[in-house]
């Protein structure tokens, strides 16, 4: 039972930022290909903390908090770019690619007047850095010294699937952003929720695509708070993966006038057509037919989060493969045939939580009350796994009401 208070309470949100996003977790910062040249940077956030991902002169990638060590102003204002040095506009303190302080105006004063004290030590005024690990080009960062090594943190199912989807060189093809008036955890639950796929997203059933009866699995492996959801086409058919229409298990209600949106080419020998991989707390890797993307869940407050879709293709894609991914892009994102409902469902949930002043609770027992891997998709067990990990890291005992345990 999940008390609704955890979705609306500001104190719980603040604690999440501290214990989860600044705690022993790995957070998606970007992909190496987004900062290919020395000096290239992109800005992002970890929880609500603004962060810069920057490639240094020697090619090393660094990440630091985007908050001036002097008076706290945001140093880097652009979303991306290339620079030799980052200079805060307020008093022009400047920092290198690793967040090290390299310039302080009037440090020694002017004509003997002012200046910082003799014992001013620039090394003590650098920007806070994150510890980084890179896996298949994906850069993850953590604020905590106690976070286990990335591969241990991921566990086997995530490591294998990321290997499968990201070991070829990739190219980011674009960003899509939605601000959704819901708590960030609602989206985490949504991408672990095998129950809603064929029910909320009617495009699937009306046009004869996915159903819960399709072969699939929901695997968490060693760490229940991550998950990999997979669906397969019809394994023995020669048509597997040629076209999502061919994996329809029932007669569709409608037919598309132009089926290029669902012209799917086979990419995986085992007929895998969908992967939705979720790494605690806010990283998603999704392959829906041939559409590939990372998703980043950025909490903005108890009632709002930003969902960033980072779409990619493989560098060695043929033009027809790029075109197929481009067309299938209509399925996902803010206007996606398979995704637009999520924003509405989550906003409806958030509104209703407030209506109840956070009293009441969610009921999540489809597929049972435990946390075992599932060889089917008629299950909510991955959501239970998320909450198990959440309670552990937040220091809530299972059964706590949450809102009162802080």
């Amino acid at each position, binding site marked *: 039972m999940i008390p609704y208070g955890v979705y609306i309470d500001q104190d719980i949100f603040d604690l999440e930022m501290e214990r989860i996003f600044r705690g022993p977790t790995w957070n998606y910062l970007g992909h190496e290909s987004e900062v290919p040249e020395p000096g290239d940077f992109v800005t992002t956030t970890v929880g609500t903390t603004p962060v810069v991902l920057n490639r240094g002169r020697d090619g090393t990638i660094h990440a630091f908090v985007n908050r001036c060590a002097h008076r706290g102003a945001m140093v880097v204002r652009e*979303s*991306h770019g290339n620079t030799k040095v980052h200079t805060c506009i307020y008093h022009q303190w400047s920092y290198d690619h690793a967040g090290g302080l390299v310039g302080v105006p009037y440090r020694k004063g002017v004509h003997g007047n002012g200046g910082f004290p003799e014992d001013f030590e620039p090394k003590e005024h650098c920007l806070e850095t994150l510890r980084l690990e890179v896996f298949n080009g994906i850069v993850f960062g953590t604020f905590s010294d106690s976070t286990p090594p990335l591969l241990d943190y991921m566990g086997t199912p995530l490591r294998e699937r990321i290997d499968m989807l990201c070991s070829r060189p990739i190219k*980011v*093809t*674009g*960003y*899509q*952003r*939605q*601000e*959704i*008036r819901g708590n960030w955890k609602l989206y985490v639950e949504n991408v672990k929720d095998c129950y809603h796929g064929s029910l*909320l997203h*009617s*495009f699937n059933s*009306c*046009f004869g695509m996915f159903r819960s009866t399709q072969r699939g699995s929901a695997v968490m492996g060693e760490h229940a708070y991550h998950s990999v959801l997979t669906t397969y086409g019809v394994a023995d058919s020669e048509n597997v993966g040629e076209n999502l229409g061919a994996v329809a298990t029932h007669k569709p209600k*409608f037919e*598309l*006038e*132009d089926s*290029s*949106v669902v012209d799917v080419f086979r990419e995986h020998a085992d007929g895998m057509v969908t992967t939705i991989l979720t790494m605690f707390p806010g990283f998603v890797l999704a392959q829906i037919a041939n559409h590939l993307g990372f998703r980043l869940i950025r909490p903005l407050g108890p009632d709002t989060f*930003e969902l960033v*879709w980072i*779409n990619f293709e493989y560098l060695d894609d043929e033009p027809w493969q790029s075109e197929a991914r*481009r*067309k299938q*892009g*209509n399925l996902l*994102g*803010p*206007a996606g*045939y398979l995704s*637009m*409902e999520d*924003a*509405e*469902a989550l*906003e409806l949930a958030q509104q209703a939580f407030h209506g109840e002043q956070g009293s009441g609770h969610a009921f999540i027992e489809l597929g049972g009350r435990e946390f075992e891997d599932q060889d089917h998709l008629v299950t909510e067990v991955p959501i239970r796994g998320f909450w198990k990990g959440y309670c552990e890291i937040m220091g809530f005992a299972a059964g706590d009401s949450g809102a009162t345990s802080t």
Partner: protein
Amino acid sequence: MTLTESAGGRVTAEIAEQIAALNYRYAQALDDRRLDDWPEFFLDDGRYIIHPRENRDRGLEGYWIYCDSKRMMLDRVLSIKEVNLYNIHYNRRAISNILVTDAGDGVYIARSNYSIVQTNSGGRSAIFSVGAYVDQVVFIDEEPKFQEKIVIPDTFTVSPLVAIPL
């Protein structure tokens, strides 16, 4: 490509007026929720693309909608009328600063600004999307049609979703 494409040849007031009227009729059809009329503003092989400004400025794709045939637009209409679920809302468009240039070979380029105010089920209104239209217009039997309409939202973080075409 940025929003400062160079101007082409001048057009007559009559052409400019017809192309402006095309945009106004387009806006009214969508505001009135006459979705079946929407594909009819386009050629059979017309293109309708929503290209958020963030991506356009960076030379990336990241389209929200990418239709390269009228049939894809008909599918979009069917899906949002019969299949997809989304927030209950009304949109109201204002299109302004329409400037038309002659690109040659019977193709006119029309650039304009749009803003869409969205009103929710509780009757509260807010700016939903602001941006530019870059259109390629041709005349078929003296009727202007979109050969291509690229919508470039400045509002590249959309709240919460896009159902009805912009």
